[in-house]
């Protein structure tokens, strides 16, 4: 559907986007996720046609649109600041695109009505944008873009200006809406929760490059790079050396702490330096020391943060290594386990938990 081939963009000496290759399928809800300044908006603006590319190609439905002007592309944009026309009413904002196409009045009215119903703006047609709430303005921006039934809809952080509750509600509506209309969405955000919740696939970007592009579950559970592992959720990292590896398991030596075991289906080179990473929620605390645990390291609780649903512990292992461990509070209460700061504990996890990242 949409193909970016070797796409790059420089502003003077600043390389905002560096040779990005990406293919997005028809009807996909695709997220570009990354920290501020990584080039997400720049990619979006090149797809929309507001920014000239410095190199590479953009293909939409197999057609090269790299040098088409924005009004010739079958692409519409929901701007981060909405960019509504302040001197037009909601209705005139929404059917701006259709009026330009000189459709017969009956069709124009029918499509306008349909899209107004779709985004739930019935009754607001006569209002001016300045007299709408942020959430309502966002809907107008969405309706104004959707009414053209583009092949591709670009959304630049459409939820970031809304407060948390409204943003979550709008997020759910957006997801349903996308399924209903079946238009391909490219959604830019720096909010990983948004990306994980909405996207069919996510591309995680850093410094103008795509680090990892995959389904949310894969990105979360099997991050390809240190950056991705660190950026999405929170993660504990251990530098270690491979001491044994076959098709089922790998054994790793963490210097100064001991051996750990990991079910891993790729054979590692013995002696290789790798990064073992494990999510805080995959680790449990235990007072018992037992060789029955698949992986077990000793430590002392240094911090304890009660966060309602969960409690987050910071545990110091040997070598001053700090890791974080997250426990569900209801589980702690069920099993009557209460850990306190200063207590000696064991951190344990199963060999199916955790992931390896190769360090070059």
């Amino acid at each position: 559907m949409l193909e970016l081939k070797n796409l790059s963009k420089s502003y003077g000496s600043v390389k905002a986007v560096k040779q990005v290759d990406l293919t997005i399928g028809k009807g996909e809800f695709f997220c570009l996720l990354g920290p501020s300044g990584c080039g997400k908006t720049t990619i979006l603006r090149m797809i929309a046609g507001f920014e000239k590319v410095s190199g590479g190609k953009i293909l939409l439905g197999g057609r090269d649109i790299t040098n088409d002007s924005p009004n010739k592309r079958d692409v519409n944009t929901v701007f981060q600041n909405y960019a509504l026309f302040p001197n037009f009413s909601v209705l005139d904002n929404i059917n701006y695109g259709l009026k330009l196409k000189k459709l017969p009045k009956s069709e124009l009215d029918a499509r306008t009505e349909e899209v107004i119903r779709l985004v739930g703006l019935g009754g607001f047609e006569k209002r001016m944008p300045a007299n709408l709430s942020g959430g309502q303005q966002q809907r107008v921006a969405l309706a104004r873009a959707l009414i053209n039934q583009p092949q591709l809809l670009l959304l630049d952080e459409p939820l970031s200006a809304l407060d948390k509750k409204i943003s979550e509600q709008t997020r759910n509506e957006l997801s349903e809406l996308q399924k209903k209309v079946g238009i391909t969405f490219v959604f830019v955000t720096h909010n990983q929760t948004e990306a994980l919740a909405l996207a069919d696939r996510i591309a995680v970007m850093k410094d103008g490059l795509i680090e990892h592009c995959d389904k949310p579950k894969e990105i979360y559970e099997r991050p390809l790079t240190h950056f991705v592992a660190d950026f999405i959720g929170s993660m504990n990292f251990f530098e270690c050396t491979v001491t044994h590896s076959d098709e089922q398991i790998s054994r790793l030596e963490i210097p100064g702490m001991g051996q750990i075991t990991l079910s891993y289906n790729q054979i590692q080179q013995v002696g290789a330096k790798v990064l073992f990473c494990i999510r805080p929620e995959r680790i449990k605390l235990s007072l018992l020391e037992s060789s029955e645990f698949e992986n077990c390291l000793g430590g002392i609780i240094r911090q304890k943060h009660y966060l309602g649903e969960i409690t987050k512990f910071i545990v110091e292992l040997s070598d001053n290594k700090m890791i974080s461990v997250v426990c569900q509070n209801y589980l702690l209460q069920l099993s009557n386990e209460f850990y306190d700061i200063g207590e000696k504990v064991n951190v344990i996890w199963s060999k199916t938990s955790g992931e390896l990242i190769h360090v070059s």
Partner: protein
Amino acid sequence: MFPKLKIHQTLLAPPLFWLLIFFIIPMAIVIGYSFGLGGVSSGASSGFTLQFYKQALSGMYLGIFLKSFGYAVGATVLTMAVAYPIAYYMAFASDRTKMIIMFLIILPFWTNFLIRMYSIMTILGDNGLVNNVLMQIGIIHEPLKLINNSFGMYVGFVYWNLPFMILPIFSSLDRMDVSMLEASLDLGANHRQTFMKITLPYSIPGAVAGIIFTFIPTLGNFIIPEFLGGTGNTMIGNVITSQYLQARNWPFGSALSTVLMFIVMIFISLYIRYFDPTKSKNMVNF
């Protein structure tokens, strides 16, 4: 509420006093003269009379009013035609370019007005720069009449009014968010449609302010016709000046002034009625 109001009144006192002394009282005096009051002798009569107004609206002077009106309209249209592209270019230029153009616009204000008038005369005169160059390269063989006619006057008006037209248009275009133009293109409008539907309406409050700033001073202007208009181009401002300074007919001059003031007031009222600059709806968020 009460103490706050008092503070406001105290703060308002000096400007009100100023307005009273230098604006309201002189205006009252002028209006008084125009009705033959105030003991200024005009030779004809003293005591309340409407004769000066009759005279002011009689054939010849009405003609001059209409002519002045025509000049003011023409000058405003020409100024707009020159100013709009400059303001537009400026609004979408880089910050550096904006600064440079702004500087160039303000620069003439640092020079004495008479010097500027004489320099226009030197440039456009029979032996001026323009005629000399054109004759040198052989395009013309006799000097063109560029001043002492209505052409010269229009040049003067456009020159004089340009900053007052450019700046308000620029300031309304400059406030415009570029992403609005991008949105219009994105929704399928081409550049011309985007200009007509988005940019132009957005600049209207600025343009109207510019029109007011141009039209009204031009209507009463007497310096530019004097310097650049020659003998045939008398405007109402010139008549008023000569009634005061040469003919010494102050009551008649006052009646002409009052009529002019009345016309100006009509335009300002219309402006406030339709483009109230104090209402944020039109100026700030438009």
